């Protein structure tokens, strides 16, 4: 009996094993990481009145995705199908020879004085529609819409949150008779829509957005002694900070927007202070005879990073606000200043000076993994994009004799210039606009 059962079991297991080994298994561990090939077609419309807006939207979208460094866009001259031929569905076979992976098409319908826009994103190789979205805008919001649609495509294809629907705050620098006229300005991330906030009569520096983008804080010489100003962009109301008899500068908002952190320098000592914007109460954060400045909050609001020369040369330190415990983060050779924490909370970007050169660098929030991603005669003041993937900073181009705004991916790739009408410095990237 035992023999019988044993043989049955052996047999059954054999049969089972054999049937299971029917399917071949293979592992692919090599491939290519590369930009996604994307074709953005001009959207279709049966109404001539929309033609202008359609072209403009197309230009902004192509520019956005191309400048992100993650997409390769194509000239519409190479397209196999026209917008009206694709108003229901593209002919996938026509797009395959071009090696295009993603195709964007759409429709624009004029409804009274508003535009109803439908966007479709197609996966050419899988022959599927992977995204469709509908928007409604008034004529002068086409720019904002272009950025929103760019973000939607970006997210669908890479998985990452977008960053195109945001603004850059900066200092516009004009040269007049060997004088620098510095004005605070705001623009779209592609350099369009510039609006000036101050008139340039007095030097204004280091502006920062509030998390809700309603206020900006900056330092100005208007009162003679450098003072911090709080400016409501919506209603134009301006307030300046407290009755400090001495220099206050380097203002930044806390992540919840309720506090302002800044530096106060008196008698050769520069320390970090926090003000509760609503109550007006001040708290001193550091208290020593050294230079402590350029403070920045972590996204959770629990820690700050700042620059201090307490150990000789300027280095970056972090402080846990609840305990006041300070930890040194940078150990390399040279000076480390202007620390900022990524909105993702994973990296700190900074300016480094070493051997006569300036670098923009990133490191982990614990100070490890330092990577220098750009360098020149003068690169300074990085600020993170809302998705933490891109940095903006300013560069003094001594050959051209002007400062300009540069963007770069945190990996060090895709260095680009954002063109401004005059020189520009002290950039600050806003959070995403409210949807």
């Amino acid at each position, binding site marked *: 009996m035992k*023999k019988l059962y044993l043989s049955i079991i052996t047999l059954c297991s054999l049969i089972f094993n054999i049937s299971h080994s029917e*399917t071949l298994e293979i*592992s*692919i561990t090599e491939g*290519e990481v590369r*930009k996604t090939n994307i074709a953005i077609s001009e959207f279709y419309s049966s109404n001539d009145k929309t033609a202008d807006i359609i072209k403009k939207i197309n230009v902004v979208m192509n520019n956005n995705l191309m400048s992100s460094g993650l997409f390769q866009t194509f000239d519409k001259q190479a397209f196999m199908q026209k917008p009206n031929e694709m108003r229901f569905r593209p002919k996938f076979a026509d797009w395959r020879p071009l090696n295009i992976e993603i195709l964007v098409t759409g429709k624009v319908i004029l409804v009274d004085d508003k535009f109803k826009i439908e966007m479709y994103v197609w996966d050419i190789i*899988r022959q599927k529609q992977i995204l469709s979205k509908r928007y409604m805008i008034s004529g002068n919001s086409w720019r904002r819409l272009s950025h929103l649609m760019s973000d939607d495509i970006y*997210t669908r294809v890479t*998985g990452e949150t977008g960053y195109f629907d945001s603004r850059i705050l900066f200092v516009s620098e004009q040269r007049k008779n060997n004088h620098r006229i510095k004005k605070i300005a705001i623009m779209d991330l592609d350099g369009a829509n510039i609006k000036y906030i101050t008139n340039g009569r007095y030097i204004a520096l280091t502006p920062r957005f509030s998390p809700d983008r309603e206020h900006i804080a900056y330092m100005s010489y208007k009162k003679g002694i450098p003072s911090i100003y709080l400016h409501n962009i919506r209603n134009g109301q301006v307030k300046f900070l407290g009755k400090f008899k001495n220099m206050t500068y380097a203002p930044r908002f806390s992540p919840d927007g309720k506090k302002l952190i800044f530096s106060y320098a008196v008698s050769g000592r520069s320390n970090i202070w926090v003000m509760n914007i609503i109550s007006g109460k001040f708290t001193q954060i550091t208290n020593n005879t050294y230079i402590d400045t350029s403070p920045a909050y972590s996204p959770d609001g629990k820690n700050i990073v700042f620059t201090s020369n307490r150990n000789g040369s300027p280095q970056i330190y972090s402080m846990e606000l609840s305990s006041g415990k300070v930890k040194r983060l940078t150990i390399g050779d040279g000076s480390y200043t202007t620390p900022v924490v990524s909105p993702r909370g994973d990296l700190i970007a900074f300016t480094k000076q070493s051997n006569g050169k300036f670098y923009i660098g990133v490191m982990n929030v614990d100070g490890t993994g330092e990577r220098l991603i750009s360098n020149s005669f003068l690169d300074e003041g990085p600020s993170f994009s809302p998705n933490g993937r891109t940095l903006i900073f300013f560069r003094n181009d001594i050959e051209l004799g002007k400062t300009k705004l540069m963007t770069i991916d945190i990996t060090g790739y895709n260095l680009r210039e954002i063109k401004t009408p005059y020189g520009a410095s002290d950039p600050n990237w806003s959070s995403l606009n409210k949807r």
Partner: protein
Amino acid sequence: MKKSILISLVMHIVVVLFFVGINFIYPKKIEVPPRVILDVAIITDKGIKAKKADIKKQKKQKIKAVKKNIKHKKIVKKKTVKKKIIKKTKLKLNAQKKIKSKTIKQTKNKTISKKVLKDLKPKKTVVSDSNTKKNTFTKKKESKIINKVKYSPNKSKITQDLNQKITKDDLLILRNQIKQCWKVPAGITNASNLITKVKVELIPTGKVINAEIYQTSISLSNHFMKAMSESALRAILSDLCNPLKLPKEKYKQWKNIIITFDPKQMLN
């Protein structure tokens, strides 16, 4: 009385299941001419090592033959299919006629087959079998067993593997092809943990007729995982990977493939 009826009933079911199973899994068992001599040699005490070398040689020769005579194989296939049908009916008839004697012999076949398998493994020997009863039996009825061994599933499996198995070279060609098609979109964050298993169904020309996500390392609700898994599907469906380069005569081995796309080594 009851006990014996029960035993015979169980054996009936076992036999039927056995043959049903065999038909589904081992049609090929009949395709290859049985290497009787080989197996007989293994059963004896002598020259196990020598036989191993022989097996290897024969394996190589077979592969060569397979590669050269594809057409011949196709013909053989057709023949063996016919043979299969004939043998199937024959076996069924046999089963119906001589149930009892067959069952006894079957059990003994199984033990022998087991032995054969054991003998192929380098460490085990025929002599090491503790069951003396079996040993004496095999020595006595060797000739009868030889014939029975012809139709045993295990023996067929051995010879089958030597002829039709997907080789490392086949896999290398396939891997080289697919890796050229796999384009991961730049921008996927923390991509090294995003592993996708794709199940593909192919027709004999190597063209994919069905590709679907079989498994992912994390949920597809994660946007990065979704993007990565879509890149895996695109790899299989792209022009450079359609059709896939696979040996047509081994189609049944690669009719269904599970492809694991693991980006870990690609990054950084």
